[in-house]
C-alpha cells in the first residue's frame, strides 16, 4: 500500500486520470516495484528463507553419523531428544541467567550514561566517545583482551586486586564464577552502545513537559521518574529487544574464552547448537535446538515490540 502510493504518486507522477489508466499504471508500477525488489528478494531467498526452510526440514530428520544409514523422517523425536538433553537444559538455564544478568545492568547503565552526557558540550563529546569505545572493539578482540585481564594470578584484574590485598577467584576457570565473568564482559561491551539510543531518545523528550514539571515543583528524581522515563518507554522497549537478541546471537566471547566450560558452566544456546552440528554431527538435534531458540527469540521480540508500540501510542 505504501510502496504503491509512493511509486504511483512520486516516481511516476500520476496525474488524476480515468480509472482504467490508473489501473494499468498501477499494474506497471507494481511490476517496477517488484523488479526493484528482486535483487534483495533473491538474496533473502537464497540466504534467509531457504536456510530457514532447510533447518525446519532437518529438525524433523535424523542422519546417523558415520555408522552408515540414510537420513530418515522422525517427526518430533529430535525435539524430545533436545529437551531431554541435560546439556541443552543447562545451556538454556545459563542463557536465561546470562540474559537477565546482562540486559538489566547494561540498560540501567546505558540510561545513566545517557543522562550524564546528554548535553552536547565538548567535554561530554569526549566522555561519550570513551563510553562508546567498548562497542567499537569487535567481540572476538574484546574476549582476547579479557583473556589476559582474567588470567588467574598474573592477569590485570588480579594484579590490581592484589594491590588492594584481595585475591581474586579463577575468573573464567571456576564453575561458580565463569558465567558472571562473561556477564561482566558483555555489560562492559554493550552498555555504551545502548547509551546511544538513550541519547537519541532523550532529545525527543518534550522540553515543555520537563519545564512544566519543574514549575510544578518536581525535583530531579521526580522529573526522571514521572516525566522522562515514561517518555523514553519506546526507546527502552527497543533497547531491551535488541539486547535480548544479542543474548542469543553473540557467543564469540564464549568461543574464545571458555568453549562453554568449565563443565558446561558457560555454555549458551548458540554454542550448544554449534557443538551438536559440528562436534557431534547431529544435524537433527542442532536443527531442533535452532528452531526452539528462534521461536523463543521471535516471542521475545514480538512481546517487546508490542510494548514499544503501546508505549508510543500512549505518547501520541
Amino acid at each position: 500500500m505504501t510502496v504503491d502510493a509512493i511509486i504511483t504518486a512520486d516516481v511516476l507522477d500520476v496525474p488524476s486520470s480515468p480509472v482504467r489508466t490508473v489501473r494499468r499504471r498501477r499494474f506497471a508500477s507494481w511490476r517496477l516495484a517488484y523488479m526493484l525488489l528482486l535483487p534483495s528478494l533473491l538474496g533473502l531467498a537464497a540466504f534467509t528463507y531457504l536456510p530457514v526452510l532447510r533447518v525446519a526440514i532437518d529438525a524433523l530428520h535424523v542422519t546417523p553419523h558415520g555408522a552408515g544409514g540414510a537420513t530418515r523422517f522422525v517427526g518430533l523425536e529430535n525435539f524430545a531428544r533436545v529437551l531431554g538433553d541435560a546439556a541443552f537444559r543447562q545451556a538454556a538455564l545459563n542463557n536465561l541467567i546470562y540474559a537477565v544478568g546482562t540486559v538489566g545492568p547494561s540498560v540501567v547503565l546505558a540510561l545513566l550514561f545517557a543522562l550524564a552526557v546528554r548535553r552536547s558540550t565538548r567535554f561530554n563529546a569526549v566522555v561519550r566517545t570513551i563510553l562508546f569505545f567498548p562497542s567499537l572493539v569487535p567481540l572476538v578482540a574484546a574476549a582476547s583482551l579479557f583473556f589476559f585481564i582474567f588470567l588467574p594470578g598474573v592477569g590485570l584484574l588480579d594484579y590490581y586486586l592484589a594491590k588492594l590485598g584481595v585475591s581474586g577467584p579463577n575468573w573464567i576457570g571456576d564453575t561458580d564464577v565463569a558465567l558472571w565473568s562473561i556477564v561482566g564482559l558483555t555489560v562492559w561491551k554493550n552498555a555504551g552502545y545502548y547509551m546511544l539510543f538513550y541519547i537519541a531518545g532523550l532529545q525527543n523528550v518534550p522540553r515543555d513537559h520537563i519545564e512544566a514539571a519543574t514549575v510544578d515543583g518536581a525535583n530531579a528524581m521526580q522529573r526522571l521518574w514521572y516525566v522522562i522515563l515514561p517518555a523514553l518507554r519506546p526507546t527502552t522497549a527497543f533497547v531491551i529487544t535488541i539486547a535480548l537478541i544479542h543474548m542469543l546471537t553473540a557467543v564469540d566471547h564464549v568461543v574464545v574464552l571458555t568453549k562453554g566450560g568449565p563443565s558446561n558452566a558457560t555454555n549458551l544456546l548458540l554454542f550448544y547448537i554449534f557443538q551438536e552440528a559440528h562436534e557431534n554431527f547431529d544435524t537433527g538435534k542442532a536443527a531442533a535446538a535452532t528452531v526452539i531458540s528462534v521461536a523463543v527469540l521471535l516471542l521475545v521480540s514480538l512481546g517487546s515490540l508490542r510494548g514499544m508500540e503501546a508505549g508510543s501510542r500512549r505518547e501520541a
Partner: protein
Amino acid sequence: MHVIRRLGAGALAAALVLTSSVAWAQTRIEFFFPVPVEGKLAREMTRLVKQFNDSQKDIEVTAVYTGSYDETKLKAQAAAKAGKPPSVVLMSANFTVDLKLAGDILSLEPFLAAEGTTREKFLGDFWPALHANATVDSELYGVPFHNSTPLLYINATHFKEAGLDPAKPPRTWVELVDAAKKLTKRDGEKVERHGFMMPGGYDYLGWLMSALSMSNGGRYFNESYGGEVYYDTPSMLGAAKLVEDLVYKHKVMPSGVIEAGGVSTAFFAGKASMVLLSTGSLSFIRENMKTPYDVAFVPRNVRNAVPIGGASLVMFKGQSEASQQAGWKFVRWLSSTDVLGGWSRFTGYFAPRKSAYDTAEMKDFITRNPDAKVALDQLAYAQPWFATYQTVAVRKALEDEMQAVMNGKKKAEQAVKDAQRKADELLRPYIDQTALKLP
C-alpha cells in the same frame, strides 16, 4: 540431419581440443592447512608450497589457510559436501578415524600399490607410535606430517632455590608431588607460586588425562576398535585422583580450569615452577622464557607412556583421477625426509620420519638444542592418540567431569563413573552397528 551431424562433428572436434588442452595444462589442486600456533608457521607453509610449485610444471597447488584444527575439519567437510573437496588436507591426526567412518577421505592403499610398495614398507621409516593414527581398519588413510607429545617443563632457578637439582627433574608421581610441595611458595593461606600447573581447557585436558592414565599403566581407549574407552578403570581413577590431590590435598596446583595460554604465561612469569605442556610449545618457550628452564619426561606411576599429538596429510573423496594423482605427488613431496626435517626444526614438532634425524642438519640442531633431544627420547615411549567414534564428544565427556573435579564439585571416583556412562551413551549407535550387530 546434416546439420546435426555437422554439429556432432564440431562437438567432437571441440572435445578433442578441450581434452588435449587439459592434457597439456597444469593440474590445479587445493591444499587446506591449519596452524595451531599463529603467524610464522603459516608463512613457512606458504613458502614450502611455492617451492613445490616452482620445482615442477605439472601441478599447481593453492595453499589455503583454514584456521585451527577443528575449523580445518569443518571447512574441508563443508567444501566436500558442496561438491568441491580440497585435494589434500593437513588434519589433526586423531580425526582420521572419524573422517573415514563418515566416508569423507580416500584410502591411500591404491597409491601405494601403484608405486609397487606396501603399507608396512611405507610406514617403516615412520616412528612406530604414529602408525595407529595413520591407519584405519588396516588401511592407510593418513601420512604423518608433524607430531608432539606432552612434556614436563621445569623452572631451573626455582629448583635451585628449593634445594632441588634441576638436572634431576621428577621421574615418578611420588617425586613430582614431593618437588611440587617444595616448590610451592605460600604467604599464609595465599599461594604466591604454584609448584605445578597443567592446562584444563577442552582438548588439552583430554590429551593430558590420557598421558596421566597411560603413565599409570592404562590405555584410555581401544586402539583397534572405535567403540570403547576406559574411563571407569583403576588406571584412569588414579590419574583423576592425582589431579584432585594436587589441588585439594597437596594444594600445589590452583583450583579451577586454566587454559594453555594461562599456564605458559604463569610459567614465564615465575608463578608456576613445573608445567605440563606439549612438545609443540618447545620453540615458543625457548623464545620467551627469560630464566633457565629444563624439560623432562612426563612422570610415571607404573610406566613411562605418553600419547602422540599432531597432524597427518589426508586426501578427500570426490576429486578427479588427475587431481588425485597430483594430490598424492604433493603428499609424497611434503612428507619427504628433507621437508619434514626442515619443518620440524622450524616449529619444534617432531619429524615423523626416523630418517630425518640421520641428516647432518638435524644432528647439528639436536646438539645445539639438548631440550629437543629429551622430547625425541620420550618418543620411544609414545602411544597412539585417542581416536574413537565421535572423538570430540567422547573426549568432552571426560573433560567436563575432570573440570568438575578441579573445581571441587565432584570426587574423582564419581567423576570417572559419570564420564564412562556419558561416553558409553555417545558410542552406543556405533556399537549397535558394529560389535553388537550379531547374526
